[in-house]
C-alpha cells in the first residue's frame, strides 16, 4: 500500500538535469578561482574573464534550475509537499559519524542562487571598469570569485558542515576584499574589525551546530537515516515534538548569535559601515545584497529549528523579533548623521536586514525571503550608483556634503536608476520594496506583534527621510567641491581620509591615460560598463516586486507558490502522505487561526514527519498599504523641506541647531559616536581582554593582599611601637595612613610575581597545580 503511493507520487514530481546537478553551481566559480590565481596574470583581461564567465555559467545553471523547479512545483497541487532535491556523497566518515557533501535544492535555495549569481555577474562586469588599472586587479577578481563560490556553496549546502564551509569562505573573502587597499591603515583596520566581529558571532555557529548535532543525531539516524548535521534531518527533528526544549533553544540562540554577527544585527552591526572601506563593487555585492543576508538565509533555511527553539508564534516577544526591531530603528537613526554616501547606504542595509529578521521572527517567512530577493536588486543598484558617482563625478570622494550636489544634470542615467532604487527601498507602490517590506510589516502586525508593526512603520518613515536627505545632497542643490569641477592636488590630501580608492589605487589610476581627462573635466556620466548594470538592476528594482504581489490577487503570489515549503505531514521518504497525520496538540503553537490546515508546527506529527511549519499569511488590505505609503511620503516631504532649509537656504534657525540646543546636540553626538558601541568594544572589552593578567594582578594587589599585608604589617609594628602608634598616629590620621601604606606594600609585595619571567610563571603554574592536587588528595582521604 505504502509503496504504491510512493510510486504514484514519484511520477508526479518532475525533476531535471539542472535540478539534479545544482551542486555544480558552486564548483564553477571555485574552479575559476584557481584558474585566476594560477593563470590570471597572463590572460589578456588579467583574469577577470574567468570570473565573469564562471558567473555567467553559474547564472545560466541557476536559471535552468529555477525553471525546472517551477515545473516541478506546478506539477502538483497547492497543498502538496514538494520534496527538495537532495543528493549527498560521503565526504568523510568516522566510526559513528559520517559527513556528507551535496545539495539541498528547494525554493529557498533556488531563489538565493539566482540572486547571488545575477548580482555577482553584474558586479564583476562593473568592476572591470571601476578597478581598471588597479595594482591588485587579478587578486580582486580571484577573491570576488571565491566569494561567490562560498556563497553558492552555502546556499546549496546539504548539511551544516558544508554550510559552515561556505560561511567561512565568505568571511575570509570579505576580509580580503575590505582590506583590498590595505596600504591605508583605515582599510586594514576595517577589515580586521569586520573579521573579528563576525568571528565573535561565528562562535555561536559552531556551538549551535554541535549542540543541535548531539541533540538530534540519534533521532535523525533512527528516523530518517541521515546525520544530525543534515538540514533536512534537523528540520524534521525540530518539528517532531521530540527535542527537549532546552537543547533546541540553546541551539537556536547560538545559531542566531552567528546570524547577528554575519547579518549586522544590533549589537554586532558596527563592522558593516566600516566595511565600506572596501572597493564599491565589494560593498555592493558582499555588504549589501548577498553576504550579509547569509545570517537571514540561515534562519530561513533552518526555520523549523528557530520556529521551535525561539517559540515563534508563542505568546511573548521572541529574541529574533526583538533584535530585528531594535536594529531597524537604531540603524535608521544612524543613517541621518552620515555624510559619506556609502555609510548612509550601509546603515540602510543594516536597517533592512533588521526588517528581514523581524519578519522571520514573527513567522513572516515568505515576505522576509522575498525582501532578500528585492533588496538585493535595489541595494546593489544604489551602491553601484554611489560608485558611479565617485568614479566619474566626485573624484573618488564619497562625501555628500563636500563633493556632491546638483549631479542630476550631469549623470542622468545614474540619477534615474538611483531614484528608482530609492523609491523601491522606501517601499513606494509599485516598486519592488513595497511588495516585500510592506508585507513584512503587515504580517508582523497580523502575528500579534503590534508594537513591532509600529516599529516597522516608524522605520519606513525614517528610511524615506534619510534616503531623501541623501538624494537631495547628492543630486540636487548646487554642485560643491569635486562635483563643481574643482580639482586641486593639495586638496586631494584632505580627501584621503574619505577617499575610497586610497592613494595607491589612485596612483595606479594615474598611469592610465583616461585619468588625465578625468581630472580636467567636471562631472560626467559613467561609461556603458557601469551604466548597463545600473539600468538592469533598476529595471529589476522596479519590476521584481510583481513576482509576489498579493495586492492583485492570488494569481500574483508566485513566489509563495514556488518558494514557500508546504507544511504537510509526509512519510520519511518525503513523498507519500502517511495515514493518521494528526497527533497531540502542542502548547507552543497557536491553533485558533483558521489558516492552520496542517498539523505541522501545531501538533506532533504522527506516522510521518514535517519539514516546514504551517505559517499564517496576512490578507492584503489596500487601506493598510495606503497608510504605510502615506507614512513614507510624509517622511520624504518632511525630509525634503528640512534638507532644502538646511543645505541650500542655510536657514539660520536650523543650521547649527545641534550646536546651540543642548538636548539635540547630545542626541547628535550620541548618534555621531554610533551609540558609543565602538568605544565599548574597542576601549573597554578588547582592552580588558588584552590585559587581563595585569588587570587581575592589579585587582589582586588592591583588594586581596590588602588584608594579608595589613595583618603582617600590624604584627611587626606591634613589637616595635604599639603604644606610640595607638596613642598618637592612630588617633590622628592612622586610618588614612594605614590604608595608603598597606595598598603600597601590597603592590610592592606582588610586584615580583609579574616579572615577565617565564620560569616564574611556570613555577606559579605548577605550584598552583600541586596545591590543587594536594587539596583533592586531602579531601578524598
Amino acid at each position, binding site marked *: 500500500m505504502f509503496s504504491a503511493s510512493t510510486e504514484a507520487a514519484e511520477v508526479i514530481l518532475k525533476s531535471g538535469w539542472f535540478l539534479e546537478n545544482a551542486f555544480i553551481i558552486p564548483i564553477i566559480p571555485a574552479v575559476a578561482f584557481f584558474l585566476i590565481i594560477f593563470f590570471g596574470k597572463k590572460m589578456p583581461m588579467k583574469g577577470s574573464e574567468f570570473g565573469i564567465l564562471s558567473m555567467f555559467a553559474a547564472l545560466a545553471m541557476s536559471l535552468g534550475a529555477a525553471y525546472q523547479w517551477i515545473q516541478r512545483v506546478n506539477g502538483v497541487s497547492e497543498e502538496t509537499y514538494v520534496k527538495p532535491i537532495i543528493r549527498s556523497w560521503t565526504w*568523510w566518515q*568516522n*566510526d*559513528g559519524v559520517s559527513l556528507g557533501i551535496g545539495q539541498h535544492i528547494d525554493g529557498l535555495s533556488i531563489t538565493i542562487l539566482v540572486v547571488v549569481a545575477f548580482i555577482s555577474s553584474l558586479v564583476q562586469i562593473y568592476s572591470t571598469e571601476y578597478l581598471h588599472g588597479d595594482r591588485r586587479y587579478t587578486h580582486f577578481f580571484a577573491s570576488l570569485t571565491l566569494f561567490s563560490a562560498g556563497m553558492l556553496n552555502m546556499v546549496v549546502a546539504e548539511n551544516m558542515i558544508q554550510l559552515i564551509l561556505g560561511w567561512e569562505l565568505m568571511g575570509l573573502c570579505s576580509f580580503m576584499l575590505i582590506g583590498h587597499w590595505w596600504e591605508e591603515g583605515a582599510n586594514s583596520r576595517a577589515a580586521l574589525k569586520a573579521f573579528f566581529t563576525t568571528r565573535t558571532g561565528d562562535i555561536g555557529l559552531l556551538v549551535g551546530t554541535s549542540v543541535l548535532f548531539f541533540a538530534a543525531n540519534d533521532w535523525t539516524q533512527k528516523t530518517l537515516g541521515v546525520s544530525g548535521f543534515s538540514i533536512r534531518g534537523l528540520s524534521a527533528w525540530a518539528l517532531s515534538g521530540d527535542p527537549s526544549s532546552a537543547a533546541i533553544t540553546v541551539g537556536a540562540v547560538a545559531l542566531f548569535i552567528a546570524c547577528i554577527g554575519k547579518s549586522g544585527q544590533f549589537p554586532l552591526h558596527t563592522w558593516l559601515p566600516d566595511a565600506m572601506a572596501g572597493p564599491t563593487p565589494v560593498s555592493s555585492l558582499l555588504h549589501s545584497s548577498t553576504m550579509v543576508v547569509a545570517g537571514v538565509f540561515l534562519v530561513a533555511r533552518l526555520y523549523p529549528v528557530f520556529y521551535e527553539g525561539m517559540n515563534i508564534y508563542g505568546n511573548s516577544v521572541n529574541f529574533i523579533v526583538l533584535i530585528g526591531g531594535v536594529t531597524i530603528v537604531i540603524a535608521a537613526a544612524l543613517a541621518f548623521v552620515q555624510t559619506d554616501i556609502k555609510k548612509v547606504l550601509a546603515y540602510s542595509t543594516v536597517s533592512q536586514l533588521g526588517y528581514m529578521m523581524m519578519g522571520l521572527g514573527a513567522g513572516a517567512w515568505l515576505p522576509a525571503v522575498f525582501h532578500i530577493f528585492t533588496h538585493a536588486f535595489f541595494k546593489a543598484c544604489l551602491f553601484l550608483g554611489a560608485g558611479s558617482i565617485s568614479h566619474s563625478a566626485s573624484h573618488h570622494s564619497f562625501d555628500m556634503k563636500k563633493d556632491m550636489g546638483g549631479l542630476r544634470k550631469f549623470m542622468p542615467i545614474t540619477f534615474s536608476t538611483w531614484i528608482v532604487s530609492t523609491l523601491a527601498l522606501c517601499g513606494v507602490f509599485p516598486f519592488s520594496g513595497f511588495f516585500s517590506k510592506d508585507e513584512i510589516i503587515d504580517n508582523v502586525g497580523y502575528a500579534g506583534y503590534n508594537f513591532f508593526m509600529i516599529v516597522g512603520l516608524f522605520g519606513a518613515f525614517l528610511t524615506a527621510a534619510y534616503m531623501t536627505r541623501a538624494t537631495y545632497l547628492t543630486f540636487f542643490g548646487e554642485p560643491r567641491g569635486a562635483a563643481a569641477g574643482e580639482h586641486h592636488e593639495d586638496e586631494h590630501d584632505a580627501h584621503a581620509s574619505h577617499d575610497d580608492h586610497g592613494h595607491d589605487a589612485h596612483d595606479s589610476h594615474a598611469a592610465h591615460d583616461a585619468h588625465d581627462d578625468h581630472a580636467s573635466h567636471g562631472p560626467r556620466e559613467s561609461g556603458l560598463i557601469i551604466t548597463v548594470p545600473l539600468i538592469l538592476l533598476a529595471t529589476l528594482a522596479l519590476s521584481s516586486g510583481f513576482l509576489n504581489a498579493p495586492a492583485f490577487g492570488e494569481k500574483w503570489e508566485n513566489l509563495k507558490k514556488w518558494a514557500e515549503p508546504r507544511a504537510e505531514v509526509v512519510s520519511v521518504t518525503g513523498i507519500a502522505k502517511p495515514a493518521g497525520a494528526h497527533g497531540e496538540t502542542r502548547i507552543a503553537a497557536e491553533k485558533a487561526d483558521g489558516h492552520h490546515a496542517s498539523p505541522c508546527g501545531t501538533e506532533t506529527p504522527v506516522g510521518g514527519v514535517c519539514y516546514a511549519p504551517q505559517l499564517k499569511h496576512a490578507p492584503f488590505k489596500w487601506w493598510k498599504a495606503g497608510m504605510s505609503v502615506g507614512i513614507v511620503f510624509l517622511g520624504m516631504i518632511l525630509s525634503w523641506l528640512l534638507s532644502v532649509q538646511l543645505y541650500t537656504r542655510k536657514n539660520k534657525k536650523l543650521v547649527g541647531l545641534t550646536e546651540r540646543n543642548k538636548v539635540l546636540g547630545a542626541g547628535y553626538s550620541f548618534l555621531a559616536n554610533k551609540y558609543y558601541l565602538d568605544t565599548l568594544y574597542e576601549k573597554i572589552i578588547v582592552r580588558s581582554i588584552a590585559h587581563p593578567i595585569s588587570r587581575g594582578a592589579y585587582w589582586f594587589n588592591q583588594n586581596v593582599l590588602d588584608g594579608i599585608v595589613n595583618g603582617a604589617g600590624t604584627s611587626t609594628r606591634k613589637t616595635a611601637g604599639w603604644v606610640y602608634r595607638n596613642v598618637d598616629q592612630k588617633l590622628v590620621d592612622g586610618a588614612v595612613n594605614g590604608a595608603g601604606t598597606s595598598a603600597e606594600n601590597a603592590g610592592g609585595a606582588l610586584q615580583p610575581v609579574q616579572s615577565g*619571567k617565564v*620560569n*616564574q610563571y611556570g*613555577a606559579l603554574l*605548577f*605550584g598552583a*597545580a*600541586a*596545591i590543587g*592536587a*594536594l587539596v*583533592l*588528595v586531602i579531601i*578524598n*582521604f
Partner: protein
Amino acid sequence: MLASDVLVAQNVGFAIIAAIMVIGALRVVTTKNVVHAALWLVVVLAGAAAQYILLAAEFLAVTQVMVYIGAVMVLFLFGTMLTRAQIGAEKDLNNKNAIIGLPIAVLLLATMLIALNDGFKAEKLPADSPLVTTQQVSDQIFGIYLLPFWALSFVLLAAAIGAIVLARRD
C-alpha cells in the same frame, strides 16, 4: 624457565632501567653542559623505550627510538649548536628559582605518590592479558580516533610551516 622467573626478571629489569632513567633525568636538569644534558636525555628516552617493551608496546618503543632519539635529539643538538658560541660547561644555566622549584617539585611528587599509593596500592598488572597488536592500534587511529588524527596532522603541518617561518632569514 618458570613464569615466576620471568616475572622476577621483569621486575629486576624494571628496577635497573628505572634507576638509570631517574639518574639520567636528574642529570638533565642539573648538568652544567647543554650537550651533556641532551645526551642524558637520550639515556632517559631510551630507558622509556625499554619500559614500553616491558609494557608490551613494541610498536611504541620503536617509534620512541625513531622519533625521539632519531629526530628530536638531532633537533636539540642542532638547536644547541646554532644558538651557542661554545660547547662546554657553563655556570649560568640555572636561575635563582631553585629555592622555589625544589619545594614545588617535592610537593607535587609527594602528592602524586600519596595519591597513587592510596589509589592502586598493590594492584598487579595482568600477566596473561591479550597483548595489544599494532594492527589494533592502527584500526583505532583510522577508526574512532580519525578526527584527532586529522587534527594532529594539521598540528604537524602548522608546526612545520611555523618553524620555517620563524627560523628563516629573510
